[in-house]
């Protein structure tokens, strides 16, 4: 067995593979199919202060090697989460990270404060990159001044590990990674979905109710990988890479490009065991090549 342990700030994970927010529910939905305790962490559904119904149907369009979604952060709000969901999550033998969303800086602060009180949640992922909401979301993640403001405010409000999830819908993602680092984030995760759209020629209408949505899946992998590589060279804090990882080798590509950890998103819809097989694949790759630890190959493309 190679050593797969990695650290995100002060948080130690048993391996670098997590499930991505919005693609694994609260974990429970997948318990019949996969052993969650084998995972490095799960990042549960995007959570907001107030309950949200999300965007109208249709919210999904299949595209060449990917999908568009326009879910729009449907969730029952932090109050419901604290009362009904948190107690069940606290039982899991894996790290549970909450993805935090708001319309305003105040929302983000209040939400982070409340999650800070939940002892079994060791980290939050600050989502400033959701493309599917009118207010907040990506507006914070695509404007450097607002990004700095919200990250600084959440840093003050939240005492545990802070991860900032970055939007790929910017000219230079490293700028936002640097801002995150300067404002005290322990890690950045990238990428969220790429803004895209689809038209149905038969109906002569956009497929999604919101016209535009977020593209995920293998279609975005080369873009995500490039951004992870650039970011890992630009900051010292760990980079969590995601975007189109469909198998174990895809995960290794992100690690070799500089990611300390990876997240599996859309792949779970098609093959729920993807994250588990990525872990097995990492272990066998390291053993075959005589590496003791996954740490040895993080960013290795820059050294060979």
């Amino acid at each position, binding site marked *: 067995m190679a050593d797969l342990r990695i650290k995100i700030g002060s948080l130690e994970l048993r391996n670098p593979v997590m499930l991505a927010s919005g693609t694994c529910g609260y974990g429970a939905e997948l318990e019949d199919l996969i052993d969650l305790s084998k995972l490095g962490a799960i990042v549960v559904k995007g959570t907001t202060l107030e309950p949200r*119904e999300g965007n109208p149907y249709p919210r999904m369009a299949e595209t060449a090697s990917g999908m568009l979604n326009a*879910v729009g952060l449907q969730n029952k709000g932090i109050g419901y989460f604290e009362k009904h969901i948190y107690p069940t999550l606290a039982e899991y033998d894996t790290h549970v990270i909450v993805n935090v969303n708001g319309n305003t800086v105040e929302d983000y602060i209040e939400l982070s404060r409340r999650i800070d009180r939940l002892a079994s949640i060791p980290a939050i992922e600050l989502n400033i990159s959701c493309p599917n909401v009118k207010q907040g979301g990506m507006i914070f993640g695509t404007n450097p001044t607002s990004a700095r403001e919200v990250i600084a405010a959440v840093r003050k409000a939240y005492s545990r590990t802070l991860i900032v999830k970055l939007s790929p819908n910017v000219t230079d993602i490293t700028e936002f990674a640097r801002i995150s680092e300067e404002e005290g984030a322990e890690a950045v995760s990238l990428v969220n979905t790429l803004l895209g759209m689809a038209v149905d020629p038969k109906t002569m209408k956009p497929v999604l109710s919101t016209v535009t949505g977020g593209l995920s899946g293998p279609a975005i992998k080369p873009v995500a990988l490039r951004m992870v590589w650039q970011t890992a060279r630009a900051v010292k804090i760990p980079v969590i890479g995601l975007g189109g990882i469909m198998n174990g080798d895809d995960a290794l590509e992100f690690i070799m490009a500089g990611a300390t950890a990876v997240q599996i998103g*859309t792949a779970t819809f098609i093959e729920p*065991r993807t994250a588990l097989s990525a872990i097995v694949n990492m272990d066998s790759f390291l053993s075959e090549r005589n590496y003791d630890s996954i740490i040895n190959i993080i960013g290795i493309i820059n050294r060979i």
Partner: protein
Amino acid sequence: MSKRIEDLTVTENHRLAEGFFVVKVSSSAGLPEILPGQFVQVLVTESPSTFLRRPISVHDVDYLSNTISLLIQVAGAGTERLSRLRHGETINLIYPLGNAFTLPAVGEKVLLAGGGCGMAPLLFLGRKIKESGIEPQFALGFRNRSRILEHEQFRDLGTVHLATEDGSEGHSGFITDIPAFRESKWDRVYCCGPEPMMKAVAALCLERDIFCEVSLENLMACGMGICLCCIVPTTSGNLCSCTDGPVFNIRDLKWQTSE
């Protein structure tokens, strides 16, 4: 109820009519309990443009041979590939998924209404209803005589009323035009078919205060409640048609706002 991910073996692929076929798949592990109205998520291989799994209703279940039947209509590349499944091939399923139809109480008079591939879940439902001691009746609608699907197995369970839109066989018009549908006092109506059909059936049932459940075919990405793409507006907010459905009581749906 627990779901599983499993490779099943194709034991039969039988063409019913142009574009419709029944695929039988068997489980070497033995089938779990499956309820009428539930569906499977099929992994479609060898179809490069098919990215996501495809949701298909359970058409019938045979516990003696551990076989599930799927009634599939070719709609695009994914179902076209499934139409070419050969005996002995394996297909990967996540199943059983979704809720189920609520079964009638003893002595109730029930009608199962559907058309096209919407007939799919009604066979297994009819079988379960028959097993519970009630003889179901069926109202099946088709565009014209040449589109009528084989329905001997439905006839084995109860009376079948047919309607064709052009009147080339059975009653002329939609299933809601079948006299037995309008004249009899039904305690329960179950419906699966194209959305206009389900809406017409729902309207008739609401008007007459008949208990009615429909099985929706919303677009799905995961089928397991983790993507929230398949939502249906209901009186209790947006629900997932893959986990809270696909079967809904028409009284809970807000169809006017989903259009």
